[in-house]
């Protein structure tokens, strides 16, 4: 067995862990952030047939064969997997990201996020061109709806995004949670009747 992502001096220890392992939709690329007491946090990405990419930045969040997206605080930063160049950034002090996922060809990142302040704060499901960072809103939610939409990328597909009314706890969801699907091509939002025990529409 070969260790794909090389060890880092000083760790990781149990307390200073290698972060979650991320894989691209194709399964051909793997990445991880490592933080140790001896080494500032770095992100390693290993794509097939490519040399190991090491970024002095963190934390890895989403990965395709071409792009790795890092997230810390209110900022997202996307880097080229092939050469480590910074492709795009987004975010401001009002940004709060939920979840995102690359569609299967890696060309688009579907992102759920909040931005704005006060009455203007809204939840937006958006499609981001993974190479340019160009963002197109798919659906927006305002007012009370804004705080009760959570994208679940792991449950979503190339055609539809799944939103829940509250975040998953691990892989569990509380009885009564509401569920919506959003059709990515036209932004149609559909709420589903009582998808979980005890739910009311």
């Amino acid at each position, binding site marked *: 067995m070969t260790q794909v992502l090389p060890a880092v001096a000083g760790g990781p220890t*149990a*307390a*200073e*862990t290698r*972060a*979650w392992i991320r894989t691209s939709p194709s399964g051909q690329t793997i990445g991880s*952030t490592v*933080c140790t*007491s001896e080494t500032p*946090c770095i992100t390693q990405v290993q794509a097939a047939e490519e040399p190991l990419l090491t970024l002095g930045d963190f*934390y890895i*969040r989403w990965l395709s064969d071409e792009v790795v997206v890092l*997230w*810390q*605080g*209110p900022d997202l930063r996307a880097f080229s997997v092939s050469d480590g160049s910074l492709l795009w950034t987004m975010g401001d*002090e*009002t*940004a*709060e*990201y*939920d*979840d995102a996922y690359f569609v299967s060809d890696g060309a688009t990142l579907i992102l759920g996020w*909040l931005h704005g*302040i*006060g*009455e203007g*704060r809204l939840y937006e499901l958006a499609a981001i061109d993974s190479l340019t960072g160009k963002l197109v809103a798919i659906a927006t939610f305002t007012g009370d709806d*804004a*705080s*009760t939409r*959570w994208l679940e990328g792991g449950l979503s597909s190339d055609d539809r995004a799944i939103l829940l009314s509250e*975040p998953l*706890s*691990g892989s569990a969801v509380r009885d009564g949670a509401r569920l919506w699907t959003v059709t990515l091509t036209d932004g149609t939002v559909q709420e589903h009747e009582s998808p979980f025990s005890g739910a009311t529409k």
Partner: protein
Amino acid sequence: MKSIVRMILLIGLAVGASLPPPASAHTPVEGAQRRYTADYASLSFRYVGTVPTWLRTAVELAVETQWLTSNNSRAPRFHQSTSGLGSVMYDTTSECADSEPDWIGCTRRWGFPDWKVWIRSGIIGGHCENNNNATGCYRASRIMLHEAEHVTLTTSESSQGSANSNMGACPPVPPGHCKNPNSGWNSSSWKECDQAAFQLKYGLQSLSGQYADCFDHIADHGTTGLATVQTVTSSTGTTCAGMSLTRSGRISTKSTSNYGLLSNLGVAGRLIRIDRKLSSSSTWTTNWSSFTTGTNQTGNNWTRSFSETVGGIYNYRIRFAGRPVLRTARRF
């Protein structure tokens, strides 16, 4: 015939009154925003899932008591209720787990009534409230103070030291920071630069109350903190010996957008000292008299009658009297 007294009130020579001397690079916490519109926004919360009693005690201590310590601002107020809209959870995972593997506390949906805070269970070192302050423990109340500030004010993890703010990141930057016995582990109130940011964004609770000691690096600062300005109805006057001459004025913080909600506030309830000398003398009689500014926000906030029994030309100057916050002695 009575002697003539000419009075010269030296107002307008200098401003700047304020806050204590510059310290190294401390400033209101970064990224501050007013995340709730109402003054004193009422943020109720409930516990969701299994939250042990010791943690409930710590959370309520943090946001219902410690939150109000060193807090002269109109920041939101928290209160626990079984029907609360906000949520406090105690879990091994959270919405932060995917992006920050070393998280110990987490906030989401800030700015909404149904905000959420997670406190991580099972962390190495444990929580101090649950292990008798064992070395390496994290104080849950300190975590909650930190997260509550994320809910109401800022996303940023402050880069300044724990002496000035509770918003310094706990792990992983640097690893282990804020765990017992490291600096800041047992913080039990807002720090000066937390309060400063809340005051800028939410305003003061009391005009005569405390200004945070963390304004000496912001734009338009005065010599040692927030700059003040003053006006007076007239800075000179002539009257007869034994007769009085009345003057009024206003002392306020400087009017500038850099001061946020602290711009152009009447400096209320501050003791002002008056020094006096004959114009022919170079020696001031300090603390010749004093008065306290009024509490009105608009218009003049002080009135003073000047009277001398011996004719001559007198100079007067007024200055802050050394109150803890607006304390620097500056001539006006």
